[in-house]
């Protein structure tokens, strides 16, 4: 039998390390690029285009030509066979066509714009704000819902708070990883990122609720048992379910990640990370946190403190 509750220090430590890595990455990114996360065109405006070259050309050639044509700031990403995603400043569809034609003549290849997307920076600020508000509203709504769902338990707020802390951890770790991806391979976040993040919010809380539901049931069954023991029993009992649900979801997500094409690659990646981290945080963080709160073992959150006798 796995002892989740007694090993909680280690579980907390793992999350804390991930959070710290995220914070460091956000700070480095802020110092280096003046933004904690690489923002996609949904959030700062610009143009993204998928160009199809036949015959195929090298990414470095495109970069050279783009610089010659005055698009120094353009980011070029390789998509599937012969396709490249180009992110650059706001250009109209006519300018984009002109650019594609010039690239075609210079690189001696047929160029086709198969996806052209323009967002002007003037509205992007509003989108960023709305995305942020959406995540906050979703989180607060979850808190209220859980407090309501566990209203017959003693101290319902505690249950909601623990679930939301685990959730926030989950969201923050994903943001941290994307900040790191932004630093390392220039991955930018877009509206789909926020969409996936909100789906993760739903999934992660879903998992926590299943565990909490079992704790609730077991508390009413074995009143004499110690709270920590009840929580641990409940975790062990729900473990198979949590892992199986996570696994089935991971199967479909992996298939989408590997075969779904480049358009939704990062969208699926967020979902995948969300399921993995969500399963971890609801099992290994949310429920043990309840025990910490109940027994006032706050020092457990600090990995190097001595265990209370």
């Amino acid at each position, binding site marked *: 039998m796995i002892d989740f509750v007694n090993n909680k220090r280690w579980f907390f430590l793992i999350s804390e390390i991930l959070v710290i890595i995220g914070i460091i990455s956000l700070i480095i990114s802020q110092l280096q690029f003046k933004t904690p996360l690489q923002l996609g065109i*949904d959030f700062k405006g610009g143009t993204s285009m*998928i160009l199809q070259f036949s015959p195929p050309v090298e990414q470095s050639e495109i970069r050279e030509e783009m610089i010659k044509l005055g698009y120094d700031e353009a980011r070029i990403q390789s998509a*599937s066979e012969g396709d490249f995603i180009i992110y650059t400043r706001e250009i*109209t*569809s006519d300018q984009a066509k002109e650019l594609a034609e010039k690239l075609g003549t210079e690189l001696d290849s047929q160029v086709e714009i*198969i*996806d*052209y*997307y*323009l*967002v*002007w920076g*003037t*509205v992007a600020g*509003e*989108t960023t704000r*709305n995305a942020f508000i*959406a995540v906050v*509203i*979703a989180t607060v*709504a*979850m808190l209220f*819902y*859980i407090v309501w*769902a566990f209203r017959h338990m003693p101290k319902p707020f505690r249950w909601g708070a623990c679930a939301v802390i685990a959730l926030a951890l989950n969201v923050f770790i994903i943001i941290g990883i994307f900040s790191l991806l932004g630093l390392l391979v220039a991955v930018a976040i877009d*509206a*789909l990122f*926020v*969409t996936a993040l*909100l*789906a993760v919010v*739903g*999934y992660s*809380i*879903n998992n926590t*609720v*299943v565990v909490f*539901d079992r704790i609730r*049931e077991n508390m009413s069954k074995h009143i004499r048992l110690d709270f920590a023991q009840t929580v641990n029993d409940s975790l062990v*009992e729900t473990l*198979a*379910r949590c892992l*199986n*649900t996570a*696994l*089935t*979801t*991971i*199967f*479909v*997500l*992996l*298939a*989408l990640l590997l075969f*779904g*094409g480049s*358009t*939704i690659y990062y*969208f699926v990646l967020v*979902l995948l990370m969300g399921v993995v981290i969500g399963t971890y945080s609801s099992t290994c963080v949310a429920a043990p946190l309840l025990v910490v709160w109940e027994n006032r073992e706050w020092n457990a959150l600090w990995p190097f403190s001595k265990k209370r006798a």
Partner: protein
Amino acid sequence: MKRSTVYLFIFILALFGFALWSIVPLDRNVLGRERLKLGLDLKGGCYLVYQADLREAEPGTEDEIMEGVKGVIERRINALGITESTVQIQKHAERYSIVIQIPGIADVEKAKEMVGLFTVLEFREQDVVGNWTPAKGTVNGTEMTLTSRYFKENTYISFDPLTQKPLLVFEWDETGTQLSEQITQRLIGKPLAIFLGDKPLRGEDGYIIAPTVQEKISERGVITGLSLTDAETLSRLLNAGRIRVPLGKWEGEEFKPNIPLYDRTVDATLGQDSIQRSIVAAAIGIVLLAIFMLLYYRLPGLVACLSLGIYGVLLLAIFKLVPITLTLPGVAGFVVSFGMAVDANVLIFERIKEELRAGRSLGASVEAGFNRAWTAIRDSNITTFIACLVLFWLGGELGALMVRGFAVTLFIGVALSMFTAITVTRTFLRLIVHSRVINNLAAYGVTPLQITRNTR
């Protein structure tokens, strides 16, 4: 066996049959163009958002003007022979914008051109051969065409006091009056048609709206003989055409005409590619999932796979019947919802296993499994609903084109998965258990050694 179980079974079969019928036999390809509505990222097409410059509009008339603009754009797009377009009006931070989605269009530039023009209706007369040519007159020595630009105020509908038939009342400004006098003088007894670009306006009955000039019209005139709907549509169009509503984008306080705020154009080949990729991905993912369920849960796993199959067919039928426009994230939502749909089954099966291990009878374990898993299923899915609602709100905001598709598909998916787990899986399991076809506990994933107490 309980009668209600049998009835429920028949109901499920009927529902499944109906859903299957609604998606399959009518077309060979389920994702075919006519059947499931596909978004522009799957089908190719364009998505444009323009902001309107309403500085010259009278306060309070903005909504009406925007409705007119919307009507004009819709007509223009329909004139291109595209039927699945949507045009919406949105208001953000006191600025109106118009959101245009045209899926499956080959000539995107043409669409943009048509939409980008500002809207003016032109009056035309018939020449000797019967062709419609612009009705012209001369003002201050220059030849000018009579257009809706010269209306003094908004046109309005009134009713003939005698016949109670609708009248469309209009008034010309100074230039308009001069032009109108010259033209109507010349055209008494002849028709005068109203054109939008190169297309004449047509009434509900499909005939060209070309009222016959009864007398010389100076400042004020009426058009009679229109149906009420036609009169209303025409009035709206004329009003939108009268006021110049430049479409473009705002940059702070400065307005840039003809430049869309958002512009997304997807080539149809990319959409085709995306569809193929997601079908492959979905198939692989779902097969893996099914294998896992079969190996791990055995007989209940098989039941879950059956109920997942029903789930998939029902979901596609809902997408088609509502209809819901499927986007790429929507497809991802569809596939992910399969993973989540398993969840309710997994919750229930784990419970059944526990009950069996505790030594309960098969029938009792199945019932207890469902009853005990219910609170967890309910509470946990409500959280996903909350997330979907927030996403739906976010998706209504400017630009977040793909977000809503995902929210809607996930919401419907989760709701339906609760139904299939609770109703379909339960009915199937009950039928199997009560018919006593398979009583071997190993089929339910429990070995006799695992049964701890056999007291109950």
